[in-house]
């Protein structure tokens, strides 16, 4: 999985104290950049990726050979125009594309960490990525943005570093992971752990992989990223390369075949233990609790200008949860804009070709940059 081709790596020598109590140091943070930093150094955008994303936001991902995960939004002439802006994205710690994660080898035991890797949080991820600013010699970012878990990192980043970003765009996210979302994540984790090849997380030491468990986890999660209407419209009850039902447990329906495919390609690019660690980090995310039940306090020290975006058909991170962020910001007179974009593409809307979303994002970013 970690073939180390074309991967930019920053070795962070500054010790990082994790929320779990452990301290890590000399650990790798893999990142990628697009476009170039201008002379004034005021055009840098830090993008945070979601659960299964990576640092390859745009262009062709050198590992999967497919388009970067946010290619609809980021690139030359796109909403986040890499001809104008310097876009940075790092693989989160706990991930599996070059950053310090459970698939790394523990130099003390010479074994792959697996579940001996420390439990990490969104806060830890953000603190690790903050090191990139110093390394790239950026005093202040123009923008931080991201969807889903990327949006949670946006909120955490502004809360931790209130003067480090001019604008912040959390998309389709929440300030506190809901019971429903914890439940879905637990389903995915249990599916991985139920695979006989998981071996308590030490599969990599024995050249095995819990493909089936990880694949089912992905299938279940994938359903939550779509909407009922979207699924119905795309698949309905259409059959997969057959004229009639086969009276078997083959993938008769296109939706079955589609999910199986999604599961099978996922295991080629993602580490099962990383999936456990990152979903855990999302479940532990509760910025409201961090500030004793008052989310507004997380943003009291910031002058950052916010744009919160949600989608009508997103039932995983519904508009109501996004609005809680808006309400908390308005309660302290912070500069916050909010739109709910109409889309039947569910939670995945932020990753897809949704023109109303992409156009609004583009114009907001460009106009906010002009007002620099």
């Amino acid at each position, binding site marked *: 999985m970690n073939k180390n081709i074309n991967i930019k790596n920053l070795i962070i020598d500054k010790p990082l104290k994790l929320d779990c109590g452990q301290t890590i140091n000399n650990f790798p943070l893999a990142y990628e950049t697009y476009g170039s930093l201008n002379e004034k150094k005021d055009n840098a955008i830090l993008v945070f990726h979601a659960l299964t994303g990576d640092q390859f936001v745009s262009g062709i991902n050198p590992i999967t050979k497919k388009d970067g995960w946010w290619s609809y939004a980021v690139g030359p002439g796109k909403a986040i125009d890499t001809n104008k802006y310097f876009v940075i994205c790092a693989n989160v710690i706990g991930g599996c594309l070059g950053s310090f994660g459970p698939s790394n080898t523990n130099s003390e035991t010479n074994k792959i960490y697996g579940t001996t890797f420390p439990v990490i949080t969104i806060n830890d991820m953000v603190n690790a990525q903050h090191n990139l600013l110093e390394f790239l010699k950026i005093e202040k970012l123009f923008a931080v943005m991201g969807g889903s878990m990327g949006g949670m990192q946006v909120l955490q980043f502004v809360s931790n570093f209130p003067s480090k970003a001019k604008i912040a765009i959390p998309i389709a996210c929440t300030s506190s992971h809901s019971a429903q979302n914890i439940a879905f994540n637990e389903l995915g984790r249990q599916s991985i752990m139920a695979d006989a090849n998981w071996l308590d997380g030490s599969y990599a030491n024995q050249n095995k992989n819990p493909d089936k468990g990880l694949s089912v986890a992905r299938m279940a999660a994938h359903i939550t990223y779509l909407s009922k209407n979207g699924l119905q419209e795309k698949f309905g009850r259409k059959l997969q390369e057959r004229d009639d039902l086969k009276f078997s447990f083959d993938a008769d329906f296109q939706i079955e075949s589609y999910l199986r495919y999604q599961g099978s390609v996922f295991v080629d690019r993602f580490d099962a233990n990383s999936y456990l660690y990152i979903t855990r980090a999302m479940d532990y995310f509760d910025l409201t609790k961090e500030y004793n039940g008052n989310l507004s306090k997380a943003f009291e020290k910031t002058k950052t*200008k916010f*744009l919160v975006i949600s989608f009508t058909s997103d039932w995983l991170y519904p508009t109501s949860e996004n609005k809680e962020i*808006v*309400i908390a910001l*308005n*309660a302290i*007179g912070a*500069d*916050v*804009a*909010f*739109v*709910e*974009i*109409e889309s039947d593409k569910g939670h995945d809307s932020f990753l897809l070709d949704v023109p*109303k979303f992409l*156009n*609004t994002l583009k*114009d*907001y970013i*460009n*106009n*906010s940059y*002009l*007002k620099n």
Partner: protein
Amino acid sequence: MKQEFKIISDFIKKNTRVLDVGCGDGTLMEFLQKNKEIDIRGIEISKVNSQKCVSKGLTVIEGDAEKDLYQFPNSSFDFVILSQTLQAFLNPEIVIQELLRVGKKAIVTVPNFGFWKVRLHLLIKGTMPITKNLPDEWYNTPNIHMCTIKDFYKFCHDRDIKLDKALALHNEKISFINEANLNIKNLSAELGIFLIEK
């Protein structure tokens, strides 16, 4: 209506915090931002319009002024603007209360249903009036609580809402409204513009 914007702009002092309730596509917000050094926010119910505003880089939240003003603390704005929107609310009375809670002062403009052309339309034609300011048919109008300048004047008076300024607008001409000329202005003006406070 440029003249209306100019009057609103004149009411607003420099370096203040302003909220435009029902800000539409952000035209007034942009006008004010250009002419005044103020910190201005907006709230707009229509998706199309709120996306237009955000695209312009304006700080606007998509929301319903009848439900969503609660999130703004007491007196968190120096001025709250309600431009030609009051008549579209289910409960204008509660909205006015909210405006005066959130804002130290409120600027409310009302299309005058007492304007002589409106009265004449109903009197002669016997159908619901359609004018420049009120272009919709009775069956598709968003304006469900039409009032006259006199109605609004009385509304404020009955609730001890202070009328700091009351202006009448007709053919881009501005005049003051007072107790003595209320009936005349109620007949001759298309729009009433009020600066009110609790």
